[in-house]
């Protein structure tokens, strides 16, 4: 990057390239359903306490309000906003993913540092035909999880990644 210094171009001449692939559109349905189920569970519990324990109402009132607003946003805005942001790719060199919503997070792990590759399919995901890919490294913060990929594509990707990592030497540290 000496050339950059030389030309004195300090305005954003370096940018993060977005990863190539979007998630499957069913991701939106999946996260919406998930948020709805969670909101029923959490608000239901809090509401039950509100109903039965009168003395707790002064504490619970503001809490329930805040939780309700959070879940309303989580159900209506979050799934679509995340779908628009999340991106991923896997190449012969690296696994690269962009996730987040309010806070964006780019993560990259070179193939040679991958320790294990997993797919995970929860009950909702199975029903929708989705899968999550997890790439683990020697550092748990370096772990990449790509949620909401079409199950078949996830399977192919993981198989390919396993081949590539098996062919790459080194102990991943």
């Amino acid at each position, binding site marked *: 990057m000496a050339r950059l210094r030389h030309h004195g171009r300090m305005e954003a001449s370096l940018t993060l390239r977005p990863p190539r692939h979007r998630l499957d559109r069913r991701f939106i349905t999946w996260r919406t359903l998930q948020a709805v189920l969670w909101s029923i569970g959490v608000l239901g519990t809090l509401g039950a306490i509100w109903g039965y324990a009168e003395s707790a109402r002064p504490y619970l009132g503001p809490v329930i309000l805040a939780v309700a607003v959070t879940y309303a946003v989580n159900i209506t805005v979050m799934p679509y906003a995340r779908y628009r942001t999340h991106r991923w790719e896997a190449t012969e060199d690296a696994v690269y993913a962009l996730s987040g919503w309010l806070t964006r997070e780019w993560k990259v792990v*070179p193939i040679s540092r991958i320790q294990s590759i997993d797919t995970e399919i929860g009950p909702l995901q199975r029903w929708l035909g989705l899968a999550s890919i997890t790439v683990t490294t020697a550092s748990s913060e370096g772990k990449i999880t790509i949620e909401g990929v079409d199950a078949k594509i996830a399977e192919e990707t993981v198989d390919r990644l396993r081949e590539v990592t098996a062919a790459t030497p080194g102990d991943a540290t």
Partner: protein
Amino acid sequence: MSGPAHDSSRSTPAVVAAPEQSGSDDMSELTNASSSSAPERSGGDDLSEPAGEPAGPVPVDDQGWRRLSVRVVWLDLVRVVISLATGYLGIVVSDEPVWALVAGACGGLLTALLDLRRWQTTRYRITPERVEMRTGWLSRKHRTVSRDRIRSVDSSARLLQRLLGLRTVHIGSGETESSFKLDALDHRHAALVQRELMPGSSAAVLAPPDPASADPVPDPVPVARMAAETVIARFRRSWIPLNVVSVWAVFAIAGPLFALNWPLRALGVDLPELGRDLIGWDGRGPVANIALVLLIAYPLGVIATTVAFLLENGNFQLVRTGTAPDTALVTRRGLLTTRTVQRTDSRMRGIAVAEPLVWRWLRLARMKALSSGLGAAAGEATGGDILPRIRLAEAHDLAAEILPDGARPLEATLARHPRGALTRRLGMALYGPALVSGVMLVFTLTGVLPGLWWLLPLALIPVTLPLAVVAYRSLGHAVDGDYLVVRHGIGHRRTVALQRRAVIGWTVQQSIFQRWGGRMTVGVATAAGARHYESPDMSEEQALTFITKATPDLAAAFVLDDYAEKSGSPNRTATVSANHFR
């Protein structure tokens, strides 16, 4: 180094002690073992190679198995005698038996007998490749750990063990489930084990001795290996004040007193009452009393921490040992309990320095060496400080010797983070307390919190604002030769220098506010040290330049260089996409 020659001279017989092949079939019998101990003990080290025990399931010692010191039996016999005496006392001391004493005696007896059984069944073996231990009576355990996994060897002794010349040896591999506890060995054997497990000394360990050659041949290799030691740091008296002066010294005296309070209360001594009378608490106001207590407790606390520091760090030595390329750093420390921790150079990935805010004016620093490949919660073996607290300048000089390549990345000039980072910190210092205050106000309005408590967080702002400036001023990053350097922190300003090859991934984060301000937080994933190091709030340009300089090949896959594209130079991402499969 006077140690090696001295030690090796007396340990040589132990290394090569020929196993007694004589068919002592009855050695497994406790009585025989203890009675035959007397002549053997005069020989000292003979016990390291136990006579065979064909009666038991343990293999005979021509495979290199050794057993615990026979003096463990004495220790157990002492315990048996004590238990019997207590039990006897418990029965005769009064008309009614004192059941607590009797029960204690029975428990002690049982423990001692079980311990004897443990002594009988425990065998350990150190081969050039691994360390093994077999133990257990009802459930047998055989534990094997590869030698290159071993990180620490501790040798400690309780009072009775010390009187009998015994040492408990703890061999740690950095993971709790694969450590050994040899309880207990003759102190010379303990020292021998500590030396045998030194990096680079694997050749010094004898292969399973050949039963045919009865003649012990001294092996010159250990001496030669041990001589290749360079001392990097030795205990200095000037370290003592730097390490014992602490804000928390008061607690060094308060803690034990607090712990002592309950047993003394059972005996009818009221410690708080006693202390109150002693200093005449009731004659003064609370402020004067607290000041007086601090005035008395602080020097006592300092004395207590001094003793603790000397016990733990006395005889401190940091050396580099072994022959290239199989070299390692070894720290030895401790007066009563000696700790030996080794860090193989080939796993060394960097170095970190933490400067506590309170002692910044003294330029005090703690230093850690970052090694890869072991569990994060590995205690001193990977996570602990490599040196006691020292002055920063001294730390910088030592760091150059600690790093195998002699680099001085900790002194690199760090790039300053953008002004926005300061604004953000000042903002957090203001709206953090304001937010807490607001939440408390809501609860005040619903009637949960009384009065004006909700104003309290706002009173913290005069403290949080200067801390925000401190936080901003400690931000910094650089790429210096083979190292990347990041620095941040308030209470402790931490500077981390990590080898560029140790980067196993990048995490770049951008919150909404950071997006508006054009800033990014860069996280480095690594297999060493804390596994994750961060440099918050770089400018976007700084962040991506940092990543590109640290890992040019990896950055090519995801950092776009607009300038390169516009000027028509070969597009690096095009070559990447050819390899792209999903």
